[in-house]
C-alpha cells in the first residue's frame, strides 16, 4: 500500500519540473524577477504604453507579411532549382547564394538608401500613385525581409522538393494526372510537410531579424525600446523587457507550428 508522501515523491520523479534542484533554480529565478520588478525603474512604462503596443503590432505584422510573401516566393525558387531548365535554375541558385552570402542589414541599407535615392530622380515614379508609399521606410523593410526569407526558405524548399520519393510522382503520372494537378496535390503538400520543422526555425530566425528594420526608421518594438533609452537614459529595463517580449513571441511561434504539425497526419514506420 502506498502512502501519501511516497506517491508525491513518485509524482515528482515522473514530472520533469518538480525535481528538487529545479525547484531551487525556479525559486532563484523568481527571486531575480521580483528583484528586477521592485528595484529597477519601471516608472517610464505608462508613458510608452501606447507606443509599445503599436511597435509590437508592427513587429508582428512585418513578421507575418514577410514570412507569407517570402514563402510564396520560396516555392518557385526551390522548384526552379530542382526541375527548372538551366536559365531558371541558375538565376535562382545565384539569388539564394547572394542573399545568403551578405548581411541582411547591408541589404536593407542597399534597398532603402540605394533605391530610395534613385527613385526621386525619375519624374514618372514621383508622379505615380505608389509614390506616397515609396517615400516611407516600411516598403523597403518588407521587401528586404521578404527577399531574405525567400532565399533561406528557397534553399530549404529545394531540399524538400528533391526529397519527395520519386515513386509518388511516377504514381501520379501513371494515374494520368495533369502535371499541375500532380504538383498541387502530391508534390507540394509532401514537400511542405518535409519543410515544416525547418520552417519553424526559419520563422524564429525571421523574428530575430525584424529589429534590423529599426535601422531605417521603421518604428517596431525594438525602435520603441531604443527611443525609451534615448529619452530617459534608462538602459537595462527597456532592453530586458524587450528580450522577454521576443522570447514570448518565439514561444507563441513554436506553439503555433507544433499545432500545425500535429494536424498533419504522419505515419511512423
Amino acid at each position: 500500500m502506498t502512502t501519501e508522501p511516497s506517491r508525491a515523491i513518485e509524482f515528482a520523479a515522473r514530472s520533469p519540473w518538480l525535481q528538487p534542484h529545479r525547484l531551487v533554480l525556479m525559486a532563484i529565478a523568481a527571486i531575480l524577477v521580483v528583484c528586477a520588478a521592485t528595484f529597477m525603474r519601471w516608472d517610464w512604462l505608462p508613458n510608452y504604453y501606447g507606443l509599445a503596443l503599436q511597435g509590437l503590432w508592427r513587429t508582428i505584422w512585418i513578421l507575418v507579411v514577410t514570412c507569407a510573401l517570402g514563402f510564396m516566393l520560396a516555392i518557385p525558387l526551390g522548384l526552379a532549382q530542382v526541375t527548372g531548365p538551366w536559365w531558371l535554375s541558375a538565376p535562382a541558385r545565384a539569388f539564394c547564394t547572394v542573399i545568403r552570402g551578405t548581411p541582411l542589414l547591408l541589404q536593407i541599407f542597399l534597398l532603402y538608401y540605394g533605391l530610395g535615392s534613385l527613385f526621386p530622380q525619375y519624374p514618372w515614379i514621383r508622379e505615380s500613385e505608389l509614390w506616397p508609399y515609396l517615400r516611407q521606410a516600411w516598403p523597403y523593410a518588407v521587401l528586404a525581409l521578404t527577399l531574405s526569407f525567400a532565399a533561406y526558405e528557397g534553399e530549404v524548399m529545394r531540399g524538400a522538393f528533391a526529397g519527395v520519393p520519386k515513386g509518388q510522382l511516377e504514381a501520379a503520372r501513371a494515374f494520368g494526372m495533369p502535371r499541375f494537378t500532380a504538383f498541387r496535390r502530391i508534390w507540394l503538400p509532401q514537400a511542405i510537410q518535409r519543410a515544416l520543422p525547418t520552417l519553424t526555425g526559419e520563422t524564429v530566425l525571421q523574428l530575430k531579424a525584424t529589429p534590423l528594420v529599426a535601422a531605417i526608421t521603421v518604428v517596431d518594438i525594438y525602435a520603441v525600446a531604443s527611443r525609451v533609452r534615448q529619452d530617459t537614459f534608462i538602459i537595462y529595463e527597456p532592453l530586458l523587457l524587450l528580450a522577454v517580449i521576443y522570447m514570448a513571441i518565439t514561444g507563441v511561434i513554436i506553439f503555433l507550428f507544433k499545432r500545425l504539425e500535429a494536424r498533419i497526419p504522419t505515419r511512423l514506420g
Partner: protein
Amino acid sequence: MPNLVGRIAMEALLSPLLQVSTMDLLALSPPGWGGNLLRGLMNSVYIAAGAYALGLLIGTGGAYGKLYGGPVVRDLLEGYTTLVRAVPELVLILLIYFAGADLINRLLEALGYTRIDINGLTAGIVVLGFVQGAYATEVLRGAILAVPQGQLEAARAYGMPPLLMLRRITLPAMLPYAIPGLANLWLIATKDTALLAIVGFSELTQETRQAAGATKAYFTFYLAAGALYLALTLVSNVIIARVERWSRRGMPSIGGPA
C-alpha cells in the same frame, strides 16, 4: 536606330549611377574610399574570427557540461542556449555591450582602479562570441552524441585522462559530424559582424554607410560591400570544403566514389 534609342534609354536609366566615376570612388588612396572599405573588411574578419574562436571554446565547455555535467549545470546551460537563441542578436549585443562595460567599470571602481574605455574590437568579439557559444554548444553536443560511444568508452577504459581523451579521441572523432554545423556558424559569424554597425563600431557595414553618406553614391558602395561580403563567404566555402574532406579522411563515403 533602335540601337541608339536603346542606348539613350540605358544612359538615362543609369545616369544617376554614373555621376562620378565608380573607379575614383573606390580608389584605395584617400580621395577614394576603397581603403576604408578594406580596413572595415579586415575589422569584420578579425571580429568574426575572434568571436568564432571564443564561441568554439564556450561551445566545447557547454557541450561537455550538457552531456556530462550535474543536473544544475545542465539546467543552467539549457537556460543559456534557449535564452540566447530566442532573443535577437541585436538586443543581446546592446545588453551585453552596455551591461558588460558597466559591470567591468563598477568592478574596477570597487577595487580602486580607474574606469577604462572598453575597446570596440574586444567588446565585439566578446559579445558575438557569447552568442556564438550558445549555437556552438548545440552543434557540438549533437556531434559528440553522433560519435560511436564505444570509442569514448574504450578511451576511458584505458584510463586516459579527460583532457587527453578530449584532444585525442572526442574532438577528432566528432569533427566530421560537427563541420557542417560549424561551417554554418562561421558564415553566421561573418554576417553578424554587420550588427556591430548599430553600436557604431567601424566594421565593413559602418565604413560603407559613412562612405555612402559622404559621397551620396549609395548603390556603388553598398554593392561593393555586398561583393566583399559575398567574396568572404565564397572563399570560406572553398576552405570549409577542404577542411571537411580532411576531417573525413579515412572514413568510407556513402554517396558513391568520392
